[in-house]
């Protein structure tokens, strides 16, 4: 079975809300799909705060993916166009909260004798 080839546009005029605005303040009545969309919203919010989004659908992708992977992601999201599914997947990957890994990578950036002294 061949892998589907999809062409997508990665964002609308406001990529942060592309297809997911309705899930803001979600009550999660639709279970996993609502949670997934809320997670995507959160990831996109992070990317916005980091200033990495262009704010327009200017990047055109043509990629080959396993159809099972595409459908699994679409099912997790509840529904959505190819663009919405791929945007969600990219947002979840690029917009992760990776504070722990970042902090561990900051070794040797404080003097060895520094201690917090407020309660001393």
């Amino acid at each position, binding site marked *: 079975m061949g892998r589907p080839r999809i062409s997508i546009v990665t964002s609308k005029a406001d990529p942060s809300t592309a297809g997911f605005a309705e899930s803001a303040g979600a009550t999660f009545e639709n279970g996993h799909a609502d949670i997934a969309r809320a997670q995507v919203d959160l990831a996109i919010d992070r990317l916005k705060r980091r200033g990495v989004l262009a704010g327009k659908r200017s990047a055109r992708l043509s990629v080959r993916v396993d159809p099972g992977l595409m459908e699994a992601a679409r099912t997790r999201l509840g529904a959505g166009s190819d663009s919405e599914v791929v945007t969600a997947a990219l947002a979840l990957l690029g917009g992760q909260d990776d504070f722990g890994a970042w*902090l561990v990578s900051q070794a040797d950036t404080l003097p060895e004798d520094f201690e917090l002294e407020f309660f001393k």
Partner: protein
Amino acid sequence: MTAAFERHDPASWRRGLAYRARSVLPYDGSAYPAGLPLVLDTTVYIDLRKVSRVPAAVAARISRDRVLHSAVALSELATALGLLDPAHPNTPTIRTAIEATLREVEPESVVAPSPDAWIEAAVVSGILARTQGFAGMDRRRLLNDAMMVISAAEAGAVLVSRNRRDMDLLLRFRPDARIWLYDDASAVRV
């Protein structure tokens, strides 16, 4: 508020608590299921920015798992910004590191003590101030530690700390709290 201030009966705590042996304290993080979020005690933010202070297993878990931030710990970090001597040659380096840490925290990942947690922590720290003879800043330190323990429990998270003495005391009041203690790895290695 009733449950919060009635959770611990001050009258049942009459004598000072002896510190317990390391072997009965929660130094084994593998006891906690993978996937639980972590909350970092204030010293963890500092230790990870030094060299080899945090054991590899602890650092690996912090790298991998979701980290929540105690508003109490962040406020303790922020006090340093005000306390640092502007004329000290190390101040720019320390200030840069602390500001970068606070800037990297995602707002939605911060957990603050609930009103109940404030009340319970106040009762517990009051009891310990009396039984252990703590005074002054020790009382305030213990109140902060109690709030960190209780709010981490509220969040269903594991609190990572190397504050063995205070955590030993606080676990008597909240044995259900998930705390993962570690030793200063640089001191252990020597």
